[in-house]
């Protein structure tokens, strides 16, 4: 079972007649339920993994489906046996370059990560709040008078693209171009590999031009910083810079956009939750953390480098263990009532942003982005609902979430009093 075409939101949940769901589990082909999401299916997968928290799927030549919370933490902590070489599975179209940071092991990982710790520090990311608030309101102004929009396309996709462009030193208005690159790397490589390679080539040309330009005229962006950085007394190679560009681009725009779109979809029909967040803005940051648990966008892989037994199964070198966070974040041993969204959940040690040394580099940025996007949207359009004429659409894969969330709302006024860009 290696088909990967994402279908729109008709329910394709199947009756399994007692067949194992794990043996056919394929993250690029998760059946969607009547609500348009795969969570009913994922909860069934989780139930099947309750006895044996790690199972074997036959998809893509076979891989381990890791669904237990403790086992996931154990694997992430065992860096000597589980290599990040296998972080994307099947491997993304990223040319011959290593995906920097995400695809690296120690000691290289830490050396390269320390180069970009500064720009991603909580102090530095907080400085983006004002720009993000303005960008969010500009986007809302562009459709608020229409009384309808697609919150994924016209808000959740754009905000991370704008921010990532700022960080990388790219023009912020070219979001469509970045998303095309991202799709090639993360999806077309499975469905249309030739197209993926061609589009990846286009991206490499753009990245090369950007790097040459920044070498001549350094700016305050991260690529300029990396060009001037050294590891072990050596400047970064062209391949290193390309690997950084790729990982910062997909890491910056894919997860946040999907997660934010899915959160907006929830807020569009969960009126009670929406009103609670409007009444209690102080709840927002913790609620966001619960959204991240509940609507976990990402899965990550690890390549087994030596024979190891974990969760009662023995893994062989060369195999892939896929850490399916949507499953481990719904492990009943770690989360009471895991299938319920509880904004003030405590404790909430979800795994969506990783654990151990590979915790998401952009963790502080994600919080600023989502908190600003949600609070400004609720301020400008406190009442909205799903558009009955246009269905939401879900993206399957290593990063999943809605890519289309059409809504309707009482038309409002663009905020003329606000200072323009």
């Amino acid at each position, binding site marked *: 079972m290696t088909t990967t075409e994402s279908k729109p939101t008709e329910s394709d949940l199947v009756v399994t007649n007692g067949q194992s769901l794990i043996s056919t589990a394929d993250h690029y082909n998760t059946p969607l339920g009547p609500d348009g999401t795969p969570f009913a299916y994922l909860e069934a997968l989780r139930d099947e993994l309750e006895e044996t928290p790690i199972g074997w799927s036959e998809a893509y030549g076979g891989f381990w489906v890791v669904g237990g919370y403790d086992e996931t933490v154990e694997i992430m902590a065992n860096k000597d046996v589980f290599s990040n070489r296998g972080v994307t599975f099947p491997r993304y179209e990223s040319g011959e370059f290593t995906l920097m940071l995400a695809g690296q092991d120690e000691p290289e990982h830490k050396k390269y990560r320390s180069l970009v*710790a*500064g720009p991603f*520090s*909580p*102090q*530095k990311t907080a400085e983006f709040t004002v720009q993000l608030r303005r960008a969010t309101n500009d986007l809302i102004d562009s459709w608020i008078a229409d009384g309808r929009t697609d919150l994924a396309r016209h808000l959740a996709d754009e905000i991370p693209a704008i921010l990532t462009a700022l960080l990388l030193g790219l023009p912020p208005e070219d979001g469509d171009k970045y998303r095309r690159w991202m799709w090639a790397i993360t999806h077309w490589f499975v469905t249309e590999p030739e197209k993926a390679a061609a589009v990846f080539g286009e991206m490499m040309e753009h990245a090369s031009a950007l790097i040459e330009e920044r070498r001549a005229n350094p700016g305050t962006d991260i690529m300029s910083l990396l060009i001037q950085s050294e590891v072990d007394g050596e400047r970064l190679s062209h391949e290193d810079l390309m690997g950084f560009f790729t990982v910062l681009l997909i890491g910056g725009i894919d997860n946040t956009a999907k997660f934010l779109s899915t959160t907006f979809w929830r807020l569009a029909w969960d009126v009670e939750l929406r009103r609670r967040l409007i009444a209690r803005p102080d709840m927002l*940051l*913790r609620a966001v*953390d619960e959204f991240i648990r509940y609507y976990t966008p990402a899965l990550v892989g690890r390549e087994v480098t030596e024979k190891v037994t974990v969760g009662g199964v023995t893994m062989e070198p060369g195999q892939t263990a896929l850490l399916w966070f949507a499953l481990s974040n719904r492990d009943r041993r770690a989360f009471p009532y895991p299938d319920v969204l509880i904004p003030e959940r*405590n*404790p*909430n*040690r*979800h*795994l969506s*942003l990783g*654990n*151990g*040394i590979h*915790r998401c580099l952009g*963790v*502080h940025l994600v*919080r600023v982005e989502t908190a600003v996007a949600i609070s400004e949207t609720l301020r400008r359009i406190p009442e909205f609902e799903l558009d009955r004429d246009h269905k939401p659409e879900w993206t399957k894969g290593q990063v999943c979430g809605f890519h289309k969330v059409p809504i309707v709302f009482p038309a409002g006024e663009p905020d003329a009093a606000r200072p323009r860009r």
Partner: protein
Amino acid sequence: MELRVDWDICQGHGKCYLIAPDLFVPEDEWGRPRPTCPHIDPGDTERLQLAQLAVQNCPERAITLQTEPSHAITGG
């Protein structure tokens, strides 16, 4: 009670200063925190609850809240 963060375990997720901004501030560029109030009076239930919330939500289990020796002797 003594509130501590083990920087060898901490990965700088930043949940402690998100949940309890009165007790933790981000300190280094990796996002690791400094407890601003490392000694909490056991009678200060409000602070104690916030500290416990931070302990219970740390994804790496890097935060500890322990009885200080002087209190232990007096049974506090």
